[in-house]
């Protein structure tokens, strides 16, 4: 479980995150949603420690991430897997080397054990026979799946996904969403997904936090979101004409 308390972050005069508190539960996908520029990615980066919040606390299973010593911070980070928006694969390494990278650095496994684990993770994300390919030789969807394989290869306790569907076609998006949901259940991780994709919201949104202009305006599940009673949430959910016509009908 990840708990954030009163997180705030400003860049210069602009307050991007305003006093956000939330609890992200274990074993199910937790979604942070909202329109572009509402501070979703900044909040995610505050949670994983890539950006230092101006105020507030982040607790990973009751361990204070920001206030703890360097060793504890490193220990927590080594329990984290993260899928970045663009995949963030190392261009100079093959798919296999990319997925194996955390194992090389963080474990003392033998080469055979590492290869076995890498192949298991690649198979788990439905990628086979791409081990020797470079990131530049595979499609955007495949890059995302390699990114997921790299994120889960070291059995993380916490999984973070920043816009996992950006730039993907609807079918591949659903595939990635289902994969994230399945992996969360299978490995019992605390998963946080930042997205503005309504298919993701309706598909895997078991615990949703809606951000609006840097504030958390609403939280609930995908079953509640269509009748939240909050104008900003309705504007976001029913922005699409089809969704709007469905609501009206």
């Amino acid at each position: 479980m990840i708990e954030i308390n009163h997180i705030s972050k400003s860049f210069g005069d602009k307050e991007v995150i305003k006093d956000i508190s939330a609890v992200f539960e274990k074993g199910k996908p937790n979604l942070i949603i909202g329109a572009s520029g509402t501070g979703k990615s900044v909040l995610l980066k505050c949670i994983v420690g890539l950006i230092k919040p101006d105020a507030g606390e982040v607790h990973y299973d009751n361990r204070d991430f920001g206030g703890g010593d360097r060793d504890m911070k490193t220990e927590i980070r080594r329990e984290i897997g993260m899928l970045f928006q663009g995949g963030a694969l190392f261009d100079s390494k093959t798919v296999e080397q990319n997925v194996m990278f955390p194992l090389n650095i963080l474990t003392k496994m033998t080469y055979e054990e590492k290869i076995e684990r890498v192949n298991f993770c690649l198979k788990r994300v439905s990628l086979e026979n791409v081990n020797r390919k470079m990131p530049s030789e595979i499609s955007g969807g495949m890059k995302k799946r390699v990114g997921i394989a790299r994120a889960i290869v070291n059995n993380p306790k916490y999984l973070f996904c920043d816009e996992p569907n950006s730039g993907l076609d609807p079918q591949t998006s659903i595939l990635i969403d289902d994969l994230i949901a399945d992996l969360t259940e299978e490995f019992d991780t605390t998963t946080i997904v930042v997205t503005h994709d309504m298919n993701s919201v309706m598909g895997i949104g078991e615990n949703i936090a809606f951000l609006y202009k840097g504030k958390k305006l609403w939280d609930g599940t995908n079953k509640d979101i269509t009748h939240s009673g909050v104008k900003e949430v309705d504007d976001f959910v029913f922005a699409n004409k089809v969704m709007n016509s469905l609501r009206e009908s």
Partner: protein
Amino acid sequence: MLIKTIGHYFIFLGHLFVNRESFKTYYKLVLEECIQVGIGSIFLVVLVSTFMGAVTTVQTAYNLVSPLIPKYVISQVVREMTILELAPTIISVILAGKVGSSMAGGMGTMRITEQIDALEVMGINSVSYLVLPKIIASILMFPMLVIVAAICSLVGGYFVGTMTGIITPNDFIYGIRLVFQEFGVFFALIKAVVFAFLVSSISSYKGYYTTGGALEVGISSTQAVTSSVIAVLIADYLLAQLFLGGL
């Protein structure tokens, strides 16, 4: 602003030695960097230094108009210029352009494509993991490249001098060996080590803190070369004062 940047640079250097990975990890990375810095630059170094020696020989001969000055002075001047200044400094300036821009560009691209963030999230000290091998490899390779440059420069001078009839082979060899001070080579190697550290650390620093997109990566590379060259020239003067000028 300059003071702030220098302070930031020293804080960046401080991160090199904090929370490091195992030596085994660095060993492989250093070897990879050595290949890029050393092997990747050797052709350029040989080419530039050979012509540098050849041109220095011709120009020295052109300026020695008095018949009272013996011919072997030409190779003596070429030797001193090459070992003391041209090989370490000019080669380091050239390497700042080649290696420095490549380091800054590579780091900048890693930054804007979130590869550095990916390392940080894994609990890896990205400064130490990415920059330390570059600095160690540069410190190992620059002195070797400077030695290669000095040899090629003298060889270039020898061939041009003897083939054009400016100087006889015997005079050239005699001039090179006359009143030779080993300290000159030692001083050149000290300069190479200092310049290697400056070029690799400044270029990595500029690349590491790139923000924005492809355009900014290009700007970082340019800034890396400019800052490295300025630092090399300032260090060149300070080292000359310290070791040769009795500062």
